[in-house]
């Protein structure tokens, strides 16, 4: 009995001491929480400051001070003041000239594209289609087509019901239908169609030869520069032709988050992200052949995206 009493006593003591410690711990935790919250607020403000687009105040300030200094140099005939004034005026003008017009966060780009892929995912899973897409090149804008065939001038991507499906006829494509019956499948506008137009315009503006004719050789030469330097859609961009397959490696793409497992999108793999889809559109236009995304591979950190485009015979 004694031994059992002895055992109970330390337990009681422990409970009492725990009860005493509890308010102390809670107080300590509350204090820590408050401290962390205030730190969080400070960090948030600093982050907003660092991400803010330059307003141009510095540029204006430099211009005003520079102008005043230049005027002062004329009055006092001081060459030192003239140099300072020239420098300030020039850098002020440069800051205003080189200021970006508007920048959008890349996370916003992902969120705008997300709904398109979710919709395609739902349609494809509901209809039970195979995950495959075929990019169909449009007729050139300059080409003459009768009124009822004008639908052929639009870039479309065909998602067939079966793997071994034949291609829809010209008449069917010209009708601008969404659901096709023979062969079974759906026709949609590629998610990268808008982006492909921007890339093409940039290519035509930068490279006069492409303005005349969009050929694959010129495309392979100039596309990496346009993607990385001009449009800054990716940090690095490589494109290699391998017989009937074109291998594209995109590093640091602005759309890389669409491939994350959290999003769980299936259509992004067979349609390609807007960037991959835009490349498919451009390849289809340049070759005049059907293009399909044969395979894609995304690195674990989503930084490198490999896409293999296959050319199909119509």
């Amino acid at each position, binding site marked *: 009995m004694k031994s059992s009493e002895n055992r109970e006593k330390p337990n009681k003591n422990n409970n009492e001491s725990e009860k005493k410690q509890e308010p102390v711990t809670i107080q300590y935790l509350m204090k820590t929480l408050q401290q962390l919250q205030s730190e969080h607020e400070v960090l948030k403000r600093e982050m907003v400051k660092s991400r803010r*687009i*330059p307003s141009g105040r510095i540029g204006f300030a430099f211009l005003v001070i520079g102008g005043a200094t230049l005027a002062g*140099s*004329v*009055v006092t*005939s*001081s*060459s030192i*003041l*003239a*140099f300072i004034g*020239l*420098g300030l005026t*020039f850098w002020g003008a*440069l800051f205003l*000239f*080189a*200021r*970006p*017009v508007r*920048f959008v966060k890349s996370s916003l780009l992902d969120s705008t594209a997300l709904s398109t892929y979710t919709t395609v995912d739902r349609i494809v899973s509901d209809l039970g289609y195979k995950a495959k897409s075929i990019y169909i090149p449009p007729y050139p804008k300059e080409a003459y087509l009768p009124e009822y065939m004008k639908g052929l001038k639009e870039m479309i991507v065909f998602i067939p019901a079966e793997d071994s499906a034949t291609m829809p006829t010209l008449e069917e494509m010209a009708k601008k239908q969404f659901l096709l019956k023979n062969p079974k499948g759906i026709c949609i506008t590629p998610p990268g169609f808008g982006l492909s137009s921007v890339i093409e315009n940039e290519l035509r503006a930068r490279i006069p030869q492409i303005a005349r004719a969009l050929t694959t050789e010129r495309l392979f030469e100039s596309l990496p520069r346009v993607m*990385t*330097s*001009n449009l*800054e859609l990716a*940090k690095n961009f490589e494109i290699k032709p391998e017989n009937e397959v074109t291998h594209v490696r995109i590093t*640091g793409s602005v759309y890389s988050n669409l491939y994350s497992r959290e999003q769980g999108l299936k259509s992004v793999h067979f349609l390609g992200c807007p960037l991959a889809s835009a490349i498919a559109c451009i390849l289809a236009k340049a070759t005049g052949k059907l293009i399909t995304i044969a395979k894609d591979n995304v690195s674990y950190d989503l930084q490198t995206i490999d896409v293999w485009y296959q050319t199909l015979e119509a």
Partner: protein
Amino acid sequence: MNFPLTPSDISLWIAVTAIILLVTSELMGSYSDYFGDFVIEKTRLRLVALILGAAFMVTVVLRIVMP
């Protein structure tokens, strides 16, 4: 009340500024990993650098033609 700088002074100033801008734009183009987050129109910066470089060359030619 005269402007205190001579044409040679301005030529020197243009040369120094052109070098600074050309080096900056070249570094920005080559090391895009490090300068990728710079919120600036890199193409415009390069354009200004090239214009200043050309302006310096013009001043040099003028000094040769009209010493």
